[in-house]
């Protein structure tokens, strides 16, 4: 089930909220678990037994880690990591691995049945790892209640696509959030949810149609203008789609009394690639830092090793996004710029005017997104070549109003803060709906209008009128 569907918006979520608010506090977590299982099973019933068994396994293994000391503790953790990462590797990468083995052998040397990917496996595996590693590190003690543990892993707002919430960030809220169940949080959550839904439905989906048109083109027929249009459209689509989803998850969480960590912070205002990764998919970056980069030695290693570790982290990050060479390339591409930043690039670009730094970083990010979107690395290079090929310019070109309007909206929303100092604090103040009564009313009205527009978009999907209905 996706948030931006009629089923979720009109039935599942309103019914869930009504029951959730009516239930006594002690039953709320159990009800969330029940709803989350239904939410998952709706589109992934086939994988539910696997998910529940793996949950049980980790619940007891975390207890085993907690009960042991020294090497035994380490060995149990290692066993847990091997099992969880092994399952992720099997489900997500087995096909990719076998395809490459067969490609290397030059024939269909090895036949195998394709493995289907359980929904949300990348996210719930990271949550399970966070749980066991935090317990190993004694950051937190394990949950005594299996309901609370299951809630952490299955909590439906973040189950399918994050944000990735580290165990230590949310364990206290799972056990006690009575004080957070306020009207203010519910309203703030509702506003946040609507903002996210609007980003996804009204901006990302519409810009995405333009991006799809270009990326579906025969590259031989693609003009320079098309390539730029497609690259820019996808750059805004992925931001509004993903940050919209995160906003919806954060909003739903707030309505339930949880405060999830932020996942985006004006990423296209980044002044270099290092800064970009502090602003883009922040929960993934923090997870990678805490559970991969630091265990690899963090900053306490030789300079060469540090650069290598950074690059490895980004290669793995690329692979985590998908089992395709272009994702690995995308990770490596970002990793290279992170290393270059440390070597000299950051020192050099910092001397440039702020706008130029932002523009340069945005340009590098756009190029990166091309490789993220295409089906193969060679396609990515082909598209980049077209973007800079003067021979591919069409003498006559019309830009459709649809693209320009949405491009302007996307551009404005991404870059309006470029000249504003202390933007984060100011945004927190601007987006706080409770500073004045007038602002609260305005927020409510805007949210309702946006909600109707989103519903209109969502419920219209799939309506294909029959032109010759008269005949």
């Amino acid at each position, binding site marked *: 089930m996706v948030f931006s569907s009629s*089923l979720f918006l009109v039935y599942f979520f*309103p019914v869930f909220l009504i029951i959730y608010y009516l239930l006594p506090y002690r039953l709320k977590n159990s009800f969330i678990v029940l709803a989350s299982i239904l939410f998952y099973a709706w589109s992934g019933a*086939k994988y539910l037994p696997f998910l529940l068994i793996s949950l049980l396994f980790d619940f007891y293994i975390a207890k085993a880690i907690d009960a042991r000391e020294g090497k035994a503790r380490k060995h149990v953790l290692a066993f847990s990591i091997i099992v969880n990462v092994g399952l992720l590797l099997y489900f997500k990468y087995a096909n990719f691995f076998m395809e490459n083995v067969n490609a290397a052998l030059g024939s269909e040397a090895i036949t195998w049945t394709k493995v289907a990917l359980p929904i949300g496996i990348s996210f719930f595996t990271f949550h399970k790892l966070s749980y066991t590693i935090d317990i190993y590190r004694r950051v937190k003690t394990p949950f005594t209640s299996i309901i609370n543990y299951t809630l952490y892993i299955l909590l439906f707002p973040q189950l399918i696509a994050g944000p990735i919430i580290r165990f230590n960030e949310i364990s206290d809220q799972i056990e006690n959030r009575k004080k957070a169940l306020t009207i203010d949080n519910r309203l703030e959550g509702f506003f946040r949810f609507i903002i996210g839904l609007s980003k996804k439905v009204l901006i990302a989906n519409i810009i995405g149609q333009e991006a799809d048109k270009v990326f579906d083109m025969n590259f031989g027929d693609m003009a320079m203008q098309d390539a730029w249009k497609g690259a820019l459209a996808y750059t805004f689509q992925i931001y509004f789609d993903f940050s919209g989803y995160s906003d919806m998850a954060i909003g739903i969480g707030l309505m339930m009394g949880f405060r999830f960590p932020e996942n985006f912070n004006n990423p296209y205002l980044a002044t270099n690639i290092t800064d970009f990764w502090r602003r883009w998919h922040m929960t993934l970056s923090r997870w990678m830092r805490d559970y991969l980069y630091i265990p690899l030695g963090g900053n306490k290693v030789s300079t060469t090793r540090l650069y290598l570790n950074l690059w490895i982290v980004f290669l793995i990050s690329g692979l985590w996004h998908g089992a395709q060479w272009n994702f690995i390339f995308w990770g490596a591409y970002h990793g290279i710029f992170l290393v270059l930043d440390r070597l000299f690039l950051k020192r050099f670009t910092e001397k440039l005017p702020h706008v130029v730094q932002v523009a340069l970083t945005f340009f590098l990010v756009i190029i990166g997104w091309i490789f993220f979107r295409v089906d193969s690395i060679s396609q990515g290079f082909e598209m980049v070549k077209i973007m800079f090929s003067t021979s591919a310019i069409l003498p006559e070109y019309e830009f459709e*109003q649809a693209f320009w309007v949405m491009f302007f909206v996307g551009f404005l929303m991404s870059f309006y803060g470029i000249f504003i100092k202390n933007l984060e604090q100011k945004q927190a103040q601007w987006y706080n709906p409770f500073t004045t009564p007038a602002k609260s009313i305005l927020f409510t009205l805007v949210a309702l209008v946006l909600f109707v527009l989103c*519903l*209109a978009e969502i*419920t219209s999907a799939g*309506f294909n*009128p029959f*032109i010759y209905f008269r005949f």
Partner: protein
Amino acid sequence: MFQSATGAFRVRMLFGEQEIPPCPKFTMHKWIDGNFTQLFERYVETHVGFRRFFIRLRNSVRYTLLYKSNEQVILGKNNVLYEKNYINALYGDDTAYTAIQTRAARLKTVSDTLSAKGIKLLVILAPGKATMYPNEIPFEYRRAKNINPANYLTWKKELAKQGLPFIDMRSWFKQMHDTSSIPVFTRLGVHWTVYGSYLAADSLLAYMEQMGNWNLGRVTWTELERTTKYRQTDADLMEIMNLLNDLPSDELVYPKVTYTQGKDKPNVLAIGDSYYWSLMCDSIHDKMFADSSHFWFYNKKIFGNNCLFQRMVIPGTLKEEIEKRNIIILLCTEPNLYNFPFGIADQLYNLYVKQDK
């Protein structure tokens, strides 16, 4: 939820609305393989309260802010609306050169055979919307392409070469569209206008009269009503855009027609596409042809003189159906020319020529 459950607050119907899917039956197997959830989500989507209003709202917002239409309609410059296949036909994207040559040759053979039985055969090449408004086609559909209505040109050439009687309404309508002050095509519709259809009807009757030496009735008008309120199919593409408010229409002309009956009422079998509809219902087909005349829509569905669907075409009765007619009219608009005459040339060829051999 409330509106869908109670049906409270009546919402304006949508044009082109198709059958709404029923609620799927739950089975464990269907749930696990994802089939149930997919069908159920579709069911929910189509039963959401105020859905019809939401669809109109969405289409209107998209049109107003983004100048975008829904998926079925292509929105050109100055609110000129198209269907994609009309544009493809104009640029020759659907060329079927060899097949047309074969079909035209077969039609000639069939025509000769039928002629010996006293049955006439007449082909009408109807115009297409994109031909009338080539300059308003959106750039993404026309870039780097030259106008090349290949199938129309091939049919015209082959019909002339084979000596088959045909009326080239495409050229005639194009000329009228470019020069006449009375629209024969509108920006908002895909078919010829009501006025255009009367011109086509009158022209068809005159041609048939000459061809069959018949004394047929005529369509005449002395009064022309000018209005911006469209009727019948004159804004059919705009209707399926399902907006909250109509797009502004050009001034249209609706003749107040009178039908005068002639001495003869030939038994007609018309086989064609949707362009024949305006000649059919409450027009010349109903009024000037024998009561047993038929219209075979795409050579599949049979409609009688009362304009009601009678039955599907039964191939086994073809000979009987053909031999009771005085004339067979084959009509086709540009985007369907690749498939024209909808299989009947081959069927008749097999029936009369192959079997005789």
